[in-house]
């Protein structure tokens, strides 16, 4: 059956230029898929709003309570704050792009910034080692990896992007 895509624009709660679209496949069965796309300026005040948008879609797709209350919000907050504070250097003139695709099998969320990116393999120090427990920083990437099934850097023409995948339990 030929599939079609319907895009529905909704008023987005973000005050800056932003857009959110929901794309649904024609099939309402297992191929049902929702897409959220938002651009936000580099300001940590926007994090909670974006997290709520993505959480809501995961709820619709019947992700577990723990995934909705812990995995998704914490890992996404980490990715967003990393993009805002490190990637874009907290510069409100620079944007962070978020694209989340959710279906009944998994969430794939991409967070892109205008920075140069970093090497995931080189960026990790084990924050659970006794000598690191008293450090204030260094738990962000660790939590992303622990709370998501996959975390990867994606090559993009401009800036950098992290892609996280969480399989529905």
């Amino acid at each position, binding site marked *: 059956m030929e599939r079609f895509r319907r895009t529905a624009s909704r008023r987005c709660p973000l005050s800056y230029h932003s857009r959110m679209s929901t794309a649904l496949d024609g099939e309402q069965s297992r191929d049902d898929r929702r897409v959220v796309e938002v651009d936000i300026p580099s300001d940590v005040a926007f994090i909670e709003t974006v997290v709520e948008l993505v959480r809501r879609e995961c709820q619709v797709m019947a992700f577990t309570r723990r995934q909705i209350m*812990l995995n998704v919000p*914490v890992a996404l907050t*980490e990715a967003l*704050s990393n993009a805002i504070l490190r990637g874009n250097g907290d510069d409100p003139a620079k944007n962070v792009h978020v694209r989340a695709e959710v279906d009944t099998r998994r969430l794939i969320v991409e967070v892109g910034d205008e920075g140069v990116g970093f090497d995931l393999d080189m960026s990790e120090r084990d924050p*659970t080692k006794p000598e690191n427990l008293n450090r*204030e*920083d260094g738990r962000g990437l660790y*939590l992303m990896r622990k709370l998501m099934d996959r975390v990867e850097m994606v090559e993009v023409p401009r800036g950098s992007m992290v892609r996280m995948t969480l399989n529905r339990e």
Partner: protein
Amino acid sequence: MSFSIKREGEVVVVDVEGQLIVGNRQELKQKVLDEMEKGEKKFLIDFSQTGYIDSSGLGVLVSLSKKIREQGGELRLANLNDDLKTLFELTKLDTLFQIADTRNRALQSF
């Protein structure tokens, strides 16, 4: 999201309402530091009304714990729900903090 501060005997009790994340962690830190400036030494942070905590929020708790200890004080945490407990276990911060199941138990432990 907000932080409310009450006194229970000699203990300063901070309720974290909503999230403790990168956007508001400094507010919590400042509130506790202000109380320390006044000479307070015993602190209890109650998470019964908390949604989620990110790495910045955890970092602020670590920082406050150190500062309170350095001034001869004590910090206790209470009322972590199962998700928050998992977060502390994943980061092994459950070994760094004294965590009580209830506010009363935490208050009695000082």
